[in-house]
């Protein structure tokens, strides 16, 4: 019965096509409003507990964005992105302890050094086919985790590793002068994240984005069309590593103290899970992924529910996304809402007639 109602409602539903440009303008307006709300509204509304969670959301949204570029745009699956994030955090922490450079410069350097490292590691792996690339990134992430566990994160010591195990008063990793407090640092993180999203958007709209789309459809066809597939895959890897490195830099300031146990190997798997659940094909998906992973645990903790349920939920989510909803929540929820809206409107019109 509901089906017939939907079918009856459909012809009246067809809205006129928006003039070119209108949709883009509306979307830009929505994004700007959301950004302004995040910058000025949220810090007023939320308690410090949730502001810290939202800072983590910003950080992990960037990490999800990086992985989303690889998975959603180029079709490369990396199972080692959290190791890359750890490299970014390590570099930033080392630079922040060793130098008095301004924070944005440190973030940029952390991004660039992570980009170099990530690309150098990924360079030979890019020759492998999808499955093998995914598995080798899992191996490399495991290796990096072992190195980090031995080298430790810098804690104000001297030498290359900057770690002093006998240090009693460990100085916190500093934050930028303009963003010492938690709300201010949250705003700072949002601005950095917004810049990263803009960077990806620019890439998608221009030549690399088109090349990636071609590669994702079919690598042989892209090659035949004269696209240097190896180069553009490398570009995607470099971009993803850069963004993840910057995210690591923001994480260093947010946490003040870093430990290698904060970056376990299975986080890389969870990150892939939330990216798939959020939606790897959409930039919104990265934000949904960040919220799923960092805000939900805080909410659950507040309600006294074990965060382990989330791990289970993410596992189920991966299976559900892969079997029935490949574009994730960012795609599915608006569709489902629209369907629900049509259904309700259909019911309403039936009742009035």
């Amino acid at each position: 019965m509901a089906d017939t109602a939907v079918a009856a409602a459909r012809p009246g539903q067809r809205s006129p096509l928006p003039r070119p440009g209108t949709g883009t303008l509306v979307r830009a307006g929505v994004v700007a409003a959301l950004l302004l709300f995040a910058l000025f509204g949220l810090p007023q509304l939320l308690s410090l507990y949730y502001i810290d969670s939202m800072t983590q959301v910003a950080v992990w949204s960037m990490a999800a964005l990086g992985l989303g570029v690889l998975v959603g745009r180029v079709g490369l699956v990396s199972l080692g992105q959290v190791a890359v994030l750890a490299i970014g955090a390590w570099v930033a922490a080392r630079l922040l302890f060793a130098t008095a450079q301004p924070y944005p410069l440190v973030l940029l350097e952390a991004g660039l050094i992570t980009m170099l490292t990530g690309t150098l590691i990924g360079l030979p792996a890019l020759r492998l086919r999808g499955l093998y690339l995914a598995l080798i990134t899992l191996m490399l992430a495991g290796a990096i985790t072992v190195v980090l566990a031995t080298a430790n994160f810098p804690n104000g010591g001297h030498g290359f590793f900057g770690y002093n195990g006998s240090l009693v008063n460990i100085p916190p990793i500093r934050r930028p002068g303009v963003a010492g407090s938690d709300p201010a640092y949250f705003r700072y993180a949002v601005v950095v994240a917004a810049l990263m999203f803009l960077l990806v958007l620019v890439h998608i709209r221009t030549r690399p984005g088109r090349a990636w789309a071609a590669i994702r459809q079919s690598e042989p066809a892209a090659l035949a069309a004269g696209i240097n597939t190896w180069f553009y895959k490398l570009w995607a890897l470099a971009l993803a590593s850069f963004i993840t490195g910057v995210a690591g830099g923001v994480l260093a300031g947010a946490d003040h103290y870093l430990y290698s146990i904060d970056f376990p190997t299975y986080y890389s798997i969870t990150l892939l899970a939330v990216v798939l659940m959020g939606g790897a094909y959409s930039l919104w998906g990265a934000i949904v992924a960040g919220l799923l992973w960092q805000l939900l645990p805080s909410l659950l903790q507040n309600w006294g529910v074990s965060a382990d349920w989330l791990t289970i939920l993410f596992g189920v989510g991966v299976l559900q996304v892969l079997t029935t909803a490949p574009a994730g929540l960012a795609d599915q929820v608006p569709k489902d809402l629209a369907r629900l809206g049509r259904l309700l409107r259909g019911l309403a019109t039936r009742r009035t007639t």
Partner: protein
Amino acid sequence: MPSWQDFEPFIVSGLALGGVYALSGVGMVVLYQATGVVYLAFGAVGAMGALIAWSLINDAHTPGWVGWLVCVAFGAVVTLGYGMVFGPALAKRDPLVKAVATLGLTLVLFGLMDLLWTTSGGESRAITLPTDGGGFMIGQVQVDWTQVIGLAAGIVITVVTGAFLRYTKLGTAMRAMANDREITATLGVPVRRVEAAAWLGCGVLAGVAGVLLADLVALDATTLTFLVISSLAAALIARLRSITLTFAAAILIGLVHDLLTPINSLTNYRDMTPFVLAAVALLVLSRGRVLSRSREEM
């Protein structure tokens, strides 16, 4: 530099560890060949089975063998169940998608284990097999029976699986499916049933590996779940094809890992062994293969 005597006990433990890696690796290769699935939940299934066995033995005070059998049965049931539900649903997808889906199962099991056997209390668990105590000496080195079982299990599984694939009807069907699923189906091979057999076999091996590794290494959800990476490394070195190569690579990984233990400068890095060996092997072996063959949908 440590003397030769320091290395001797680690040869024994390395061979035992390598044997269990071989058993796991062979299970994963056979399943991949028959169904195209890299079963990344192998370790998690074994870990949860081992934890269930631990609870049965310590809380319900069942005899040890009941616990071990339940562990193996758990591995078999979960793996077969997953294969029956998600195998057909994902049959036509890229191997990458199939592998990532098993990560979903890994996360579910991992969350359950954290929930049911919480580790925050610092409670340490252990499974001891009756074979731990006895043993014999080779020269100066004490060898216990569990270590013998570990290596023997690896050898036996490799040989038996090899013979099974070569000489039995079911094994031939599995090899045929590794070549081409569609053509095999056209020839009248009951594809689903053969796949089910592969899932079941892999699940049994996951359970066996769970018990053995819980004894040889540690009974800890995270450790056991990610030990799968070591067996996976062995399977990858064999390019997920040859079980003989998988066996050799697994023994090599186990040996190198344990032999690094007495070397002070490298002992902290010994856990990198499987990753480094697999990465090097893959990069060397894959030279010249540039193009992906099919559309990599996600």
